[in-house]
C-alpha cells in the first residue's frame, strides 16, 4: 500500500532518538496541514511517534508495517484549524449524517482530507478528493446531487463547500464537526 505524502523521512537502520529528531526537523520545513511519512526499522518508534505527536499537537494518522520497515504518517498541526469561523451556511451534524447512512440512502460523501488521513480512517464509501485537488477533480461530481463534505474538524470541508457552491453546486452540505468526533462506522486501507 502506497499512500501519497508531502515528504518522506528515511530513518531506516537508525536507533532512537534519530527517527524522532529527523521527523521533527523535516516537519519544521513543511506547511501546516501537510503530511509526512517516517520510515523506520526501530520498533520503539511506533510508541514514541504517537506519544511525541500527542505532546506536540501534530496529528498522528497511523502506521503500516511492511517486512521490517515501519511507515508512520504524521500531519503537521495547523493552529488556525480549530478556531477558524465557518462561512458556509448549510451544515449537517455527524449524527444527522449517521442517520442518513443508517437509512441506506447512499449519500455522496466527499472526504477532502489528505490521502494519508483518508487511508487510516474514513466513512465507508466516502470518496477521497483532497481539498487542494478539488478544483481539478470537480468534473467527477454531479451538481444536481446532494453532496456531504467532510474533513477532520469541519474547516477544510467548509472551504470545499464554498468552492463547490461558487461553481453551481446547490445541494452541498458541510459535515460538522467531521472525523475528529465521528463515532459511526469507519474503514481503512
Amino acid at each position, binding site marked *: 500500500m502506497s499512500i501519497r505524502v508531502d515528504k518522506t523521512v528515511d530513518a531506516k537502520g537508525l536507533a532512537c*532518538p*534519530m527517527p*524522532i*529528531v529527523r521527523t521533527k526537523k523535516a516537519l519544521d520545513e513543511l506547511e501546516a496541514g501537510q503530511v509526512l511519512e517516517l520510515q523506520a526499522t526501530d520498533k*520503539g518508534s511506533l510508541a514514541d511517534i504517537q*506519544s511525541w505527536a500527542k505532546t506536540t499537537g501534530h496529528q498522528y494518522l497511523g502506521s503500516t508495517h511492511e517486512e521490517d520497515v515501519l511507515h508512520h504518517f504524521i500531519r503537521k498541526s495547523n493552529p488556525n484549524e480549530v478556531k477558524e469561523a465557518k462561512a458556509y451556511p448549510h451544515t449537517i451534524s455527524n449524527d444527522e449524517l449517521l442517520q442518513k447512512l443508517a437509512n441506506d440512502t447512499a449519500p455522496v460523501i466527499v472526504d477532502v482530507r489528505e490521502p494519508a488521513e483518508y487511508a487510516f480512517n474514513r466513512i465507508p464509501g466516502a470518496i477521497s478528493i483532497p481539498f487542494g485537488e478539488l478544483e481539478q477533480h470537480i468534473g467527477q461530481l454531479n451538481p444536481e446531487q446532494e453532496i456531504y463534505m467532510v474533513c477532520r474538524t469541519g474547516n477544510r470541508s467548509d472551504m470545499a463547500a464554498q468552492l463547490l457552491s461558487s461553481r453551481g453546486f446547490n445541494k452541498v452540505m458541510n459535515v460538522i464537526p467531521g472525523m475528529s468526533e465521528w463515532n459511526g462506522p469507519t474503514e481503512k486501507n
Partner: protein
Amino acid sequence: MNQTELKGMTAGELAVKVFHHEPLFILDVRNESDFMNWKIEGKQIQILNKPYFELLESVDEIIDQIPDETEVLVVCAKEGSSQFVAEQLVEQGKSKVSYLLGGMKAWSEHLEPVKIGDLSDGGSIYQFVRIGKGCLSYMIISEGEAVVVDTLRMTGEFERFAAEHQAVIKHTLDTHLHADHISGGRKLAEDAGAMYWLPPKDADEVVFDFNPLVDGADITVGRTRITIQPLYSPGHTIGSTSLIVDGKYLLSGDILFVASIGRPDLAGKAEDWVGDLRETLYERYKQLPDDLTVLPAHFGSIAELGQDGSVSAKLADLFRNNPGLNMTSETEFRSAVTEKLPPQPNAYQEIRQTNMGKITPDDEEQREMEIGPNRCAVHDK
C-alpha cells in the same frame, strides 16, 4: 563550559549499586507507557520520567530537578536517547551524570550471582539474580559437577560461572514450562553435553527430547551424591515440580514466592488449577520440614531482596507471613488467584511456544519478547 567527560554505566555496575542501596537519581527518558509498565527499582533510587522526545530542543524544563550532589543515571530502551540527553545535561553543567550502557535491554539481561550457602559435602548453591526482570536461577556445584535450575536465556553466563568454579555442567532442570521468560535449559544442556529435565505434564506439546522430571527421579551432583529430590507440586502449571536440595533447600519454582504465590492462569487454565495450587501450598508444602530455605524462581519487587541481594526465606516464616499461605477459606483463595490478577507477562503465549520448541525466534526477537516484568505472582502489579 564544564568539560566533564560523559561516562556509560554498565548494568553490572548498576546492579551493585542497587544491591548496596547506594543513592542514585535516575532520569528515565523512555515514553510514559514503557516507563509505567516497567522501570528500575531500588531502595535508594529516585526516579524521574521525561520522554527524550520532549527534550530534543533543550533540557531546561527538567534541569532544576536534576540533583548536583547525587549521582545521576540517564536510562532509555537501548542507549542512544539516554546518551543524547545525558550529553545535554553535561553541557548544562551537571557533572555526576552517566547513561546506562545497553539501556533497559542490558538491564533486563544482567545476571548477578550470589552464594546462598554450603552443602553437606562442601559444595555450594548459588542464586543468579536477574534483577531487571525479577527472575532467579540456581547453580548447585559439588565436587567439580554442576546442576543448573531454571536456566535463563543468557546461557553464556552459566557456562562462564561453572568454568570459573572448575565445574562441569551435568544437568539442567526446569521446574515448569515458563511463560515469562525463555528457558536456556535445553540450549545449555546441548552446549555442555548435559541432560535436560522437564516435568512431563508440562511437556504435552513439546517437540524435543527431554528427561522426565518426576517424583523419585534420581539426580545427583558430585561424588558424594548431593540429592535433588523432585516434588510434584502443581498449580502454577500442571507439571510444576519443586526440588529439595541436600535436605536443606526448597526450590519452589513459580509455586511459592517470598511475598506472594504463583498465578494459575498463564496456560489458560486458572479455574482448573486453583485446587491443585491450594493443595500444593496448604497440604504438600505443610508436610515438609519447616526449616527448609525457600528459593523461588522469581521475585516481584526489590523489597524481597535481602542484604546481599539474594532472595530467600524460611518455609516456617512464609507460613506465618506470606499472604498467599494465609487464606483460610477456599473461596477467598479461589478469588485471590483468579480475579484481579495483574496483566500477563509480555508475549507470554509466544514465550510458552518458544519453550516448547514450536517456534524459534532469533536473538533480537527473543529479547523483545522478554521486555518487561515477569508478573508470575498473583500479587504483582
